[in-house]
């Protein structure tokens, strides 16, 4: 079985037709991990016996007449989502030894549909980063070019899917952390609208921005997983009570009748010429599929990165206050006379440099005397960025943009310059600030063989439109030599 190109759809069909069992499928995934992950480093934790036990239970359930949509399909999970009984380290030393006591809601829903949780994938510590180099545990390499980063923060999930070591994976996207690594590695990455998918059981980084989404080989696979994961959750008050359409069933057809906008602020100097060319080619392909292309403007784009890093760091500084060595994770072994000493020692040893930098930044922008100047001001600019999208979506159904200004960076290229690293997110953070949905779909490779993605952005809760566009483009791309 070649799981290097197997889709979730094909796995579902194969399992239903009894062409292979879940144990055979899961075994193939584990073998691929054994064979390739020594070089790539996508996974932080794999328990073969546990994965095969889950697979055997799925096979038994099928023999007993069960037929959940994902019954027996193995998935890789970013190591920031709680899966009961499995580690959840967030790629941080501070959570070394932690085992999740419960399932995140998305995990519970996938489990209900029969999925097998095969392993935990690497990330930037607490999802803070755009290269996965901020993992405190290991380096992940880009399967397309092992001297380069996979992107981040869901770099392990992207590398697992693109590297043929997972059929699909879950990632999280706070400022582009699903779409950007998907683009860098050459897979599909979907960031749902804020409120579409429950965040219960996701270790929070920036609560007003974080979303969980699928990373897959095809747009159809992303549709299938979103259909299972989405919908209101009483445990997350920010999920909205809106029906979850059958996204996968609605795919197909061309793009006739759709207007797609090109935001002029996204096609500017600084964009890598090869990225620009590949994205323009993708735009032309969408036009050939029947879409009307119009130019639109998102005038506050240049303020998005500053706005994002103020708000995300502020939220991170409060969310990460809970890591103090009292209830879970690692506690410093240095003897402490007072709880304060214990907190200080634990946090000094447990957090990596990028996490500390953002906590300091976030604490500063929330501190007395600076709160209005930075935090409230940024929240007001966020309103302007949202309004830009509202205006743009009056003129078009969705937007087409690059995902990232450059293809994957060489390992170490952004290590000494945090501001340079932050600017990688320039085309993706706006979707998180506005709460809209976005998808990255592969649109070719550079002459050096580096994958590049096309980003499609649609209004909140218009994932159906987003997936329809992504799917039509994908089919058009496949059809051409």
């Amino acid at each position: 079985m070649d799981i290097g190109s197997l889709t979730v759809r094909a796995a579902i069909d194969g399992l239903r037709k009894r062409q292979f069992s879940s144990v055979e499928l899961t075994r193939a995934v584990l073998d691929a991990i054994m064979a390739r992950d020594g070089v790539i480093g996508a996974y932080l934790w794999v328990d073969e016996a546990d994965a095969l036990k889950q697979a055997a239970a799925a096979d038994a359930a099928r023999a007993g007449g069960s037929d959940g949509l994902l019954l027996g399909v193995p998935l890789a999970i970013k190591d920031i989502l709680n899966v009961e009984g499995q580690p959840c380290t967030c790629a941080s030393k501070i959570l070394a030894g932690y085992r999740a006591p419960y399932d995140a809601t998305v995990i519970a829903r996938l489990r209900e549909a029969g999925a097998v949780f095969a392993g935990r994938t690497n990330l930037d510590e607490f999802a803070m980063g755009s290269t996965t180099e901020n993992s405190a545990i290991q380096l992940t390499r880009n399967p397309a070019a092992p001297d380069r980063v996979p992107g981040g923060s869901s770099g392990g999930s992207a590398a697992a899917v693109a590297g043929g070591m997972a059929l699909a994976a879950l990632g999280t996207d706070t400022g582009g952390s699903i779409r950007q690594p998907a683009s860098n590695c050459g897979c599909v990455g979907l960031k749902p609208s804020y409120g579409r998918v429950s965040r219960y059981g996701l270790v929070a980084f920036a609560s007003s921005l974080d979303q969980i989404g699928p990373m897959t080989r095809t747009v159809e696979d992303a549709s299938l997983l979103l259909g299972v994961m989405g919908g209101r959750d009483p445990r997350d008050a920010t999920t909205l009570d809106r029906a979850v359409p059958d996204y996968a069933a609605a795919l197909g057809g061309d793009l006739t009748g759709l207007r797609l906008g090109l935001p002029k602020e996204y096609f500017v100097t600084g964009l890598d010429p090869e990225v620009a060319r590949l994205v323009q080619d993708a735009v032309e392909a969408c036009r050939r599929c029947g879409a009307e292309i119009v130019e639109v403007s998102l005038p506050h784009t240049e303020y998005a990165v500053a706005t994002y890093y103020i708000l995300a760091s502020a939220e991170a500084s409060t969310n990460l206050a809970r890591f103090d060595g009292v209830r879970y994770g690692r506690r410093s072994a240095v003897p402490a006379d007072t709880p304060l000493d214990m907190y200080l020692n634990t946090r000094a040893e447990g957090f990596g440099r990028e996490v500390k930098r953002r906590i300091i930044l976030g604490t500063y922008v929330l501190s007395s005397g600076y709160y209005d100047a930075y935090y409230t001001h940024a929240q007001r600019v966020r309103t302007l960025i949202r309004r830009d999208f509202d205006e743009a979506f009056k003129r078009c159904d969705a937007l087409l943009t690059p995902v990232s200004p450059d293809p994957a960076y060489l390992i170490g290229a952004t290590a000494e310059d945090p501001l340079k690293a932050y600017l990688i997110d320039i085309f993706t953070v706006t979707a998180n600030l506005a709460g809209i949905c976005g998808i990255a779909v592969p649109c070719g490779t550079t002459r050096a063989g580096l994958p590049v993605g096309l980003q499609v952005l649609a209004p909140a809760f218009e994932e159906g439109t987003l997936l329809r566009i992504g799917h039509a483009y994908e089919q058009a791309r496949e059809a051409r030599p």
Partner: protein
Amino acid sequence: MAAEEIDVAYVAQLATIRLTDEESRLFQRQIPVILAYMEKLRRLDVSGIEPTSHGHPVYNVLRDDVPTPGLDAERALANAPARMRNTFKVPRIVES
């Protein structure tokens, strides 16, 4: 307010983080550069603009006032770095 005024050591204290001397020096150099970049937001007049705190603000979402099971004590304590009987063990808070 000029961003160069950030006193990293003081802010670290507010954040309950102890930095090494090297980290203090590094952040004292880097964070003003990041804050200087943030200054571009000052160019925007936002008077009269409502702040957005969430993608889709939802308020007062309440469930029915019915008890539901949570984590039992054993599972809640399973990850405790130190425990004593059915409690999390920490350094003494109250002076003897």
